């Protein structure tokens, strides 16, 4: 046996888990409840300005990419738990995560 390179998958998984635990609920609270109820208004200018700032970009990217990776990794493990293993599942999970991450990155660069 040899030491594994799993940390490359696991570190962002663990980080993503923490990020998801800390901020995903409040984000959903905002977009899923407060905005539809009209409690707050997400106006374009503020958001765009935030997304313009390098630190804002970083925060937004982290909030999307890390939980996305977390989700992909966990789903792959769960698929395995359910008896669905193999390269296909692996590609589907991590592939989707990469897609989300790249789209987010692209959008942030473009903003």
């Amino acid at each position: 046996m040899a030491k594994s390179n799993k940390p490359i998958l696991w570190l962002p998984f663990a980080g993503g888990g923490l990020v998801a635990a800390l901020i995903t609920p409040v984000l959903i609270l905002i977009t899923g409840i407060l905005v539809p109820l009209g409690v707050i208004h997400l106006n374009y200018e503020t958001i765009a300005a935030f997304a313009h700032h390098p630190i804002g970009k970083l925060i937004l990217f982290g909030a999307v990419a890390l939980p996305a990776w977390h989700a992909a990794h966990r789903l792959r493990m769960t698929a395995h738990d359910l008896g669905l293993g193999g390269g296909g599942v692996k590609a589907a999970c991590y592939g989707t995560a990469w897609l989300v991450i790249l789209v987010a990155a692209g959008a942030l660069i473009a903003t």
Partner: protein
Amino acid sequence: MSRRPYVRKIERNWWLQHPRYVAYMIRELTSLFVGLYCALLAIGLVRLAQGHAAWDGFVAAFSSPPGVVFQWLCLVFAIYHSVTWFALTPKAMPLMVKGEPVPGKLIVGAHYVAWAAVSAVVLMAAGV
């Protein structure tokens, strides 16, 4: 030789056979909703990059009844994720102070405090 060890195969629905595995499966499935919500956010970022009108369309879409229902689901699972994640932190990161372990409740509690703080900051930034 008379030995003939009997191997029991693990069944596919093993996780239905004990409440603790069901709870585990639900915990794992939270990731599906976390992931979907991330995808929603990514789309939001694209719409944001596309300009004012696109953004408003996006806001309208996620505020529509189906969008709201979907996000409610996501919220329930996301909170379940947070709770289970924090509950496990003392195991992953135990602390020792002066040779005595810090009680797990304290570590979990600190995470709840952090959770509240982060949420408050985000809410304020969003203009509540």
